């Protein structure tokens, strides 16, 4: 039996190291060797993966934080701050909503509470039938079913025509504030050209039509699940 003591191990390691070092004395010869090339590629890949892992660890938290901030900012536009004291992001509820007007099979609803009492909700939804596909909306509704705010989060409408649904282009979308199914008749939930209450933009009627129809569908969705949402518990 050979005892694997510390000394022999060290000696062995030193020997190997020296042999390895000697390889590097003649770089030109080394570079030609297939095994060296294989190892080098492996080392590079390993190092890259390692660094990426570290990078991910370092930035993970910050990135999650930023994304939450983004969402909070959007929510803040449709939910007045005075209405809630809870962490809205944390009080997320998922409601099955196939065929209920939000354009989604499962609608994520953020519930805002003040003093434990549900004061308002906000949900993301799709407005279908835009000029160039669907528009993603964030709709805020208070507990009585009155709209607190609507924002278009993403869309592909024609720049210069349909993009007036963005707040940076025009204030048209603010016209929904305060509307509800009860204070606006079903006939009213249309653009003026079709005999309703809402303006269309000059040159474009398709986009506003889609948004108006979408928001109405969103309100109907809220109406249907009102009880369930208002009695939400932690």
């Amino acid at each position, binding site marked *: 039996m050979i005892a694997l003591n510390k000394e022999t191990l060290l000696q062995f390691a030193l020997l190997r190291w020296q042999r390895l070092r000697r390889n590097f004395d003649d770089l030109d010869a080394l570079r030609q060797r297939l095994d060296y*090339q294989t190892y080098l590629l492996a080392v590079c890949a390993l190092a890259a993966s390692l660094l990426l892992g570290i990078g991910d660890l370092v*930035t993970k938290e910050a990135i999650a934080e930023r994304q939450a901030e983004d969402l909070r900012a959007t929510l803040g536009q449709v939910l007045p701050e005075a209405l809630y004291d809870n962490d809205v992001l944390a009080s997320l509820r998922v409601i099955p909503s196939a065929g209920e007007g939000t354009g989604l099979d499962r609608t994520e609803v953020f519930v805002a509470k003040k003093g434990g009492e549900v004061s308002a909700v906000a949900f993301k939804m799709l407005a279908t039938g835009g000029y160039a596909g669907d528009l993603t909306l964030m709709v805020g509704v208070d507990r009585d079913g009155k709209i607190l705010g609507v924002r278009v989060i993403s869309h592909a409408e024609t*720049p210069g025509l349909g993009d007036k649904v963005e707040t940076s282009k025009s204030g048209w979308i603010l016209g929904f504030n305060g509307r509800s199914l009860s204070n606006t008749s079903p006939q009213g939930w249309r653009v003026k050209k079709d005999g309703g209450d809402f303006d269309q933009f000059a040159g474009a009627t398709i986009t506003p039509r889609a948004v108006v129809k979408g928001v109405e569908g969103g309100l109907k969705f809220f109406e249907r699940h009102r009880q369930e949402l208002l009695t939400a518990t932690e």
Partner: protein
Amino acid sequence: MSESLSRIAKEGLWSNNIVFSQSIALCPLLAVTGTTTNGLGMGLATTAVLMVCNLLISYGRLLIPSEIRIPVFVALIAMVVTLVDMLMNAWLHELHKVLGLFIPLIVTNCAILGRAEAYASRKPPVYALFDGLMMGLGFTLALVVLGAAREVSGSGTLFANASLLLGQGFAWLETTLIPEYRGFLLMALPPGGFLMLGFILAGKRLLDKRLARRPLRNAAIEQPLAENV
């Protein structure tokens, strides 16, 4: 020594400019130069990637066999770009929201692999780093010039949203040059990028021709006209 550095600077910024002379890296160029700020951000991100990659590759140039250099370069570049992407997402989030889609595309930016191949793998680290800096700045220059031209003609503003990139201290950069401008969408869209790039390239060639002719006239010495094609 210094002469060589100054030549590197001149090449990177002007005579061998990635965009104006080599006409490469046009995809990110046309995609992000809708506004000056975006161009600047993309340019700086690319510069950072270019410098780090050049430096790493120059250090390893003696160790990397030519047979496997391309996979090694690609692995390195992809790593650096991904790191930049993550870091920007974390600390320059607003800009990342705008450029996010295009940052990963830096990997496919042929300028970076091109510099690694043509310069960094042959020159010592200091020069490679400096070359990366100058090529990157040259690219940034192109992006900013094109971005500015497109932004002014497309929407009448300059450096819109600069504070997102540079911090609130630079909010003064955001100017509206043409108030009440209706916006010339074509310029903000990719075709406008091509159009404007064409005009800028033509302008640069005109300028180069003038510059080449001047010493000829003054010194009356036979000099071949330097033409950058």
